[in-house]
């Protein structure tokens, strides 16, 4: 009985996290504006936290940045203008989706390079295997005793 109670409390606690965003009040009446606001808060890094967006963080700076963001959106700035406002002050580090530049090319190309390397390795292995005879008499696994 006690266990069940504890379990339900824990489960309810877990759900409560889903129910409330970090700011209790909705930022904008207009759902389109609210969607843009939420999208942008997830694109921007909380600069003092380890890998958290400003949507996820309770830190004062993140709260200040969210307020700044609401102000910019309310004043009619476009998403690009808002992002430019922040990169002018904090640099590309504030973006979770950094632009392709001379200094970020390795970041963007690394997955492709690794994938090509993996394909190359796979091709070599497959070709080597293909050259082996089809049935291997020494293979104890496939032959019946």
């Amino acid at each position, binding site marked *: 009985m006690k266990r069940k109670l504890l379990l339900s409390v824990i489960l309810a606690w877990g759900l409560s996290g889903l129910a409330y965003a970090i700011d209790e009040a909705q930022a904008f009446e207009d759902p389109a504006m609210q969607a843009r606001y939420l999208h942008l808060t997830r694109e921007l890094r909380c600069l003092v936290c380890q890998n958290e967006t400003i949507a996820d963080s309770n830190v004062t700076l993140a709260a200040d940045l969210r307020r700044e963001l609401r102000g910019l959106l309310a004043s009619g700035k476009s998403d690009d203008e808002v992002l430019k406002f922040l990169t002018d*002050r904090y640099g590309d580090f504030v973006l979770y989706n950094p632009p392709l530049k001379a200094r970020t090319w390795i970041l963007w190309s690394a997955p492709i390079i690794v994938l090509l390397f993996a394909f190359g390795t796979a091709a070599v292995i497959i070709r080597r295997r293909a050259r082996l005879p089809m049935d291997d008499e020494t293979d104890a696994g496939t032959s019946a005793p």
Partner: protein
Amino acid sequence: MKWRFIAPALVFAALFAVFGLMLYRTHSGNYNPRDIGASPLLGKPAPQFSLAQVENIAKTVDTRTFAGKPYVVNVWATWCVACREEHATLLALARQNVVPIVGLDWNDDLSQAQRWLGALGNPYVATAFDSNGKVAIDFGVFGAPETFLIDANGIVQYKHAGVMTIEVWQREFITRLQAGNSP
């Protein structure tokens, strides 16, 4: 056959070297993963502000007062432990009277800030009270303490994030101030 053992060892050694180097450089202070490009403000006009003064809330601190000569903006707060650490250094620098240090009290409690300056001494020509962090955002501040050097033309010449030391002051601030004076 031999490569089967050598190749993974080589890959491991390469990764070990890369991670080791980056860790070493982070530790020795030569590399900061947050510096994806230093402050974008460098070489640009410093943000202007006009805020209430901590020392006397009826007065305002206005950057226009300092224009025409180099000045330093030091971002601090009473909740910031590292600010307490650098406070003695700031006092010593203020006594040298080379360049005015303007305080920017960031997201702080006014009475606590006043008590701090009263108890520890005041190195600032004036301290601006940035209660909601709006000016700090303009400066691209992400942690206190941060110290900015602004030249006579109002251009941000340098930003130091972290505790100010005499070494940093001599190496980064004084050399730039002297370079700005000579031509």
